[in-house]
């Protein structure tokens, strides 16, 4: 089987105790029984609001935390029983500036972790150079202390460090957080390159476009539960109308509006008056058919502008989570 990750009914509670009496103050149910599988070579995205349980999932899979109940297998190994086997084959990159030795240089950080991962001496130097190159860290800064780096440089170094053991499986927890648009795009390109190299990647993010662009499949998590799971295209199909057509007209009659609303391919329509023009918003699943029939109805009315918008993953996300969260 080509399953890289197999999670079944995974639960994780955090017990918060009072410092003085050690009594249990609160139990946070971070994961409430999640199950999913990730195939080898896949890029799998975990989305969800703050506190949804994304980092907890990633930490359990990377052997930093134990499940409270349920099972999690990485590359066939159980996280509870065979952490060492898993550790040899995976690595984790956390977004942000932590997880590096600030008082060491890039090269020193890389050499240290290369030793801990037992990277063969013969290929060590070349691998470090290649990875730093891949991560796009300028060579003239390799000997400077990490504490003198910008956020983006630290993040690049983290990526390079995360690849030092040539892992089959890479976990990225919000890898683009705090990067400038170009930096974030470069990082996405690195992720794509890694996929081409055959690596399996699980990553979490708050940026929908990023998930849409990179992920083969996505799970949306909320309050420790999986709300939905599927390819970005599937999710968009399942949870929202596919297209929104916006037309700008100088005028329109009630009769026209009625006829438009009764068209077969128009699922929903809304009008709005803006700066003396009429804006029509039409939701549809069949774009070309809808456009054709709408234009037929509007024959004779001057159309000033037309735009067609494909619904985005963000629309799905907001639809699934938005309302509920605005209330709470």
């Amino acid at each position, binding site marked *: 089987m080509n399953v890289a990750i197999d999670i079944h009914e995974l639960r994780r509670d955090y017990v918060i105790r009072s410092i003085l009496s050690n009594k249990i103050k609160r139990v946070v149910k971070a994961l409430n029984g999640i199950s999913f599988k990730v195939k080898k070579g896949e890029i799998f995205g975990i989305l969800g609001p703050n506190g949804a349980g994304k980092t907890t999932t990633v930490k359990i899979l*990377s052997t930093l935390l134990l499940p409270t109940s349920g099972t999690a297998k990485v590359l066939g190994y159980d996280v509870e029983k065979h952490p*060492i086997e898993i550790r040899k084959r995976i690595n984790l990159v956390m977004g942000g500036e932590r997880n*590096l*030795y600030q*008082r060491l240089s890039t090269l020193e950080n890389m050499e240290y972790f290369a*030793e*801990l991962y037992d990277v063969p001496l013969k290929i060590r130097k070349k691998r470090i150079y290649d990875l730093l190159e891949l991560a796009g860290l300028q060579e003239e800064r390799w000997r400077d*202390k990490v504490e003198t780096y910008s956020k983006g440089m630290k993040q690049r170094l983290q990526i390079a460090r995360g690849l030092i053991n040539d892992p089959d499986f890479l976990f990225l927890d919000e890898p683009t957080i705090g990067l400038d648009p170009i930096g974030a795009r470069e990082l996405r390109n690195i992720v794509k390159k890694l996929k081409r190299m055959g690596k399996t990647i699980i990553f979490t993010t708050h940026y929908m476009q990023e998930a849409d662009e990179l992920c083969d499949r996505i799970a949306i998590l909320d309050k420790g539960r999986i709300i939905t799971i599927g390819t970005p295209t599937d999710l968009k199909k399942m949870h929202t109308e596919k297209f929104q057509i916006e037309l700008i007209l100088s005028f329109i009659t009630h009769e026209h509006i009625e006829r438009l609303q009764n068209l077969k391919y128009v699922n929903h329509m809304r009008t709005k008056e803006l700066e003396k023009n009429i804006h029509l918003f039409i939701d549809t699943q069949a774009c070309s058919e809808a456009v054709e029939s709408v234009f037929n109805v509007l024959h004779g009315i001057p159309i000033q502008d037309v735009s067609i918008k494909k619904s985005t993953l963000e629309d799905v996300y907001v639809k699934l989570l938005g309302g509920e969260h605005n209330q709470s």
Partner: protein
Amino acid sequence: MRYLRVFLAVLKMQTKISFSRNLFKFSVLIMPIFFSTLLYFVYDKASNSSSSYIMLGSAVASLWGVTCYSSAIEIERERISGTLESVSMTPIGFEFIIFSKIIANTVIGLISFGVTLVYSSLILQISLPVYSYRQFVLWFLILLFSFISMSFLLATLLTLSGNAFAWMSTVQYPIYFLSGMLFPVKILPKWVQYISSVIPIRWSMESLMKIVSGMPNSSIIPNLISIILSLLYLALAHYSFRIIEIKRRKEGTLGGF
């Protein structure tokens, strides 16, 4: 071989990081001088035993200061900076890395030891009538072993306590009094002496002090006690590490913030 290479990498890294801190440079290079100067004025310089405290006692005390301080604090530092997570994800295992760190700190602490010896012999003009250098070196190694085992256990327990910074000084200072580094254990109240007797350093110090006072000392009993206690401490530390590992993964408290 693999373990030796990891140890060397840890030693290199630990030395670089430690010496990039000014406070650390101070405590390694300057503190020992304070120590021996202080003892120089406290003790009557005439007798053999006082010169052994001024020179060897303060050297050992400085060594203890460096080893204990950095061993306890280093884990906490790594926890705060998040590197503890990255390091404990490596297949070599968190325990061996911490153990290496502690040996590394002891090796770095030897610089302090050396500074004290040089300072007290050149500036304070103190000389030690060492009975046998071969015995001295051998027993000094046993002392280092007791340092390493104690620091390892302390580092583990402090990590378990989750509040290393607060506990560190509470543990570091009593050792100065209890272990016979700065004055003989015999002058302590009887009940305190009982506490002393479970500290391996105390037994090693007893033997070493005799040799550097020019006395023949062929009794290996105190050294044997020191070794046995040290082994016990190591076993205890190893066991605590099991608990730490489980606690860390189960409670999620030792990982991040």
